[in-house]
């Protein structure tokens, strides 16, 4: 214990210092532009927030490659990629609105908290005007909400859950990737043709948000065509051995197994299912079948031989023959030596769409950019004619139904396109029950 010795003079002196310190903020800078992180005259900074560690690190690495390629093309480097094939010809390789495009990167670790921390540091420290990336719906939803609060645009990367543009949609967030509902709507007719209308399905579902919406979407569209759902079992996301979940499937009376799994989960569960002989089994007098709603090339490579003949859906595939896809595959392949994944494609396209919207709006202000993106119709970016719907900021375009190839010619040539489901068939009303319960709110320019 010490005795304090306050003197009148001491108190006055410290009071004067404190007063001076408090007076300092009167010299503070005002935001004259009217929106967060207005760029200077020479350069503009974009924030690429991708998983560099954790279960989706492969996708993240591919997304980052695509972003670097997009920046190169926007700044006039390389062969221009999809810029010449894009229906909107506003971008000319001189950056965005004459400003050179620079970027910062961050690691989401596929965790909402880490992703938000990384995005906040991009916004607060590096002055990023737009955040993009992510390879998981949880992260996309979390970062989208953050960008809404901070007043910057969020262009989501790979996120497939209905919620991103459903109950968690935000005015500052935009999604180019397709969603669970579209997977269900595109897969159902193909499954009906291949396997008939009298089937009994058994679902294994990853126990988190994306798994739920995918299961719901596949169930409702298969049940609509006459299938019956025998059981739907949730599996923990961290599960690596699915034997105990696969074992009861044959005894359940089901003759189709639907694996609502993604990434490593899907690789493991499919491998287990094949090891248990499900592919050769017969049930109810029919050949037993397996369906994987969301496919990616990286997953197909992980599962190897086991994907042969298995149906699934995908947003984009490098073997597409349209001009835009070809141009993208060519410039990606020239730079990195292998074809891009669907994650890389959607990230590349999102960056171009953002740059184009700024160019058309003539301003970086998020509200102006959002207005330019809303209801925007474009073509030449690999998915055919596409609409950015104003009501929920979701892109509507053709969906690919793919099947594991029987005789792959290379380690990248693992999927074959069975059907290109036209956009009309996968379009839904903005207030569809699977998407109900959210509101875009007003766009936010920040301060």
């Amino acid at each position, binding site marked *: *214990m*010490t005795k304090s010795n306050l003197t009148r003079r001491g108190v006055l002196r410290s009071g004067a210092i404190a007063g001076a310190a408090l007076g300092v903020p009167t010299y503070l800078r005002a935001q004259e532009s009217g929106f967060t992180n207005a760029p200077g005259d020479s350069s503009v900074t974009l924030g690429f927030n991708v998983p560099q*560690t954790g279960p989706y690190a492969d996708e993240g690495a591919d997304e980052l490659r695509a972003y670097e390629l997009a920046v190169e093309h926007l700044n006039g480097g390389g062969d221009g990629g999809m810029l010449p094939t894009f229906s909107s010809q506003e971008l000319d390789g001189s950056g965005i609105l004459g400003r050179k495009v620079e970027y910062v990167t961050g690691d989401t670790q596929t965790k909402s*908290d880490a992703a*938000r921390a990384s995005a906040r540091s991009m916004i607060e420290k590096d002055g990023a005007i737009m955040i993009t990336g992510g390879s998981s719906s949880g992260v996309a939803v979390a970062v989208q909400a953050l960008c809404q609060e901070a007043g910057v645009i969020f262009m989501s990367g790979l996120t497939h859950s209905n919620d991103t543009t459903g109950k968690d949609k935000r005015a500052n967030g935009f999604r180019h990737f397709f969603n669970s509902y579209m997977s269900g709507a595109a897969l159902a007719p193909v499954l009906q043709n291949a396997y008939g209308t009298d089937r009994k399905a058994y679902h294994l579902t990853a126990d988190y948000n*994306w798994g739920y919406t995918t299961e719901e979407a596949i169930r409702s569209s298969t049940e609509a065509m006459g299938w019956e759902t025998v059981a739907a079992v949730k599996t923990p996301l961290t599960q690596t051995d699915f034997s105990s979940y696969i074992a009861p499937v044959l005894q359940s009376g089901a003759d189709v197994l639907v694996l609502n799994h993604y990434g490593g989960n899907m690789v493991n569960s499919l491998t287990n299912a094949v090891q248990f002989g499900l592919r050769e089994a017969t049930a109810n007098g029919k050949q037993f079948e397996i369906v994987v709603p969301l496919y990616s090339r990286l997953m197909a490579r992980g599962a190897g031989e086991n994907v042969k003949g298995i149906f699934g859906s995908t947003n984009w595939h490098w073997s597409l023959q349209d001009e835009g896809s070809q141009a993208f595959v060519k410039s990606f392949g020239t730079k990195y030596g292998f074809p891009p994944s669907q994650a890389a494609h959607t990230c590349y396209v999102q960056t171009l769409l953002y740059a184009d919207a700024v160019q058309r709006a003539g301003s970086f202000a998020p509200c102006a950019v959002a207005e330019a993106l809303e209801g925007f119709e474009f073509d030449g970016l690999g998915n055919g004619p596409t609409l950015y719907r104003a009501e929920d900021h979701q892109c509507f375009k053709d969906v690919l139904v793919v099947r594991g190839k029987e005789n792959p010619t290379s380690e990248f040539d693992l999927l074959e396109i069975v059907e290109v489901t036209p956009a009309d068939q996968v379009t839904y009303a903005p207030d569809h029950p699977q998407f109900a319960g959210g509101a875009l*709110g007003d766009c936010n320019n920040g301060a």
Partner: protein
Amino acid sequence: MLGLGKKDTTLLLIVAALVVFAPFILNPFPGGSGMAQFNAGYPDLMQRFVIFGIFAIGFNILFGLTGYLSFGHAAFLGVGSYSAVWMFKLLSMNVLPAILLAVVFSGLFALLIGYISLRRSGIYFSILTLAFAQMCYALAYSVLTPITGGETGLQLAQDDPRILDAARDSGNLPVPGLFGLEMRSTADLVLGDWVFTFSAGYYFCAVVMLISFYMAIRIFRSPFGMMLRAIKSNQHRLNYTGLNARPYTLAAFVISGMYAGLAGGLMASMDPLAGAERMFWTASGEVVLMTILGGVGTLIGPVLGAGLIKYMENILSKINGDILHSWFAFLPDGLEDFIVTIVYPFIGKGWHLTLGLMFMAVVIFLPGGLVEAGQRIARAVRGRRSDDRKSATTEPAE
């Protein structure tokens, strides 16, 4: 001052000064220069420094004083965050009720878990707490999705009731605040090339952190703190003297759980989202690392450890290959690539590797953590000075 000894008062004042002037101290490099990469003076990271400081201070009350190593402390952080966000959703966007509920709820939770786990000590206690925390994580991630939002995390929504707040007409989500002062509001001070950002949220956290720090000092110096140290040094002997140690350990556990809840509540107040990852075992492990890195059982150590780890996580992890190339661009091409290849695994996504190496170095060479490093330097300086004066007085070790 305030019932503290002279040494503790000095310590508290030093910490207060560091915290108040953090926006200047953490922004030493002018913006636009190559070194600006290493600036840490932006609101989000500064908030993290003090919030995880609180978390580590609380953890240290349990681990540093009683020696009970809880490996599930992140569960309380998570419970605090969820309670705070629920308060924002249901009651009001004012942070005070949210933080209050976060502390109360995590305290109750700690009472429950502590009551069961403290029946064992040593490694069994650690495993029990770890098991509880993982259970909480699994529940929050899937089973309790209606309450916790599952994988997506618990977020605010437009149509939340918020019964105390006035009806809103704007289409945007409300922001947490303290009687109208928004937590995210900032003011910038421009001095030449430097931009210093003062954030309302940061200073709010800083005040809470100073209060927590002061309370931790009082606990360390109290008879109760002495009793906790007795438990650490020899619990058997304490039992033979007829004292029941359980109420003391339980009290310490609940207090440190409340500190964790406070940190969780503050986290939610700065950024109104609560995710299940906050409760994952790696998050529990992180606070153990912070405490050991800084110095177990010291007052300032855990705060330093928390700062160091959060700095590395947020700054080191953002350095990518391109930045490295620009640093070493002055070297000849072959050499540049070579050096970048050597350095690259340790930065960017490899920051965990650097952290691991540092942790090993600290545990092997500085068992007392950063605080011991500081003491050794101080002793070396003082030793040289006393050599000059040719006096042979020695300071007793802390």
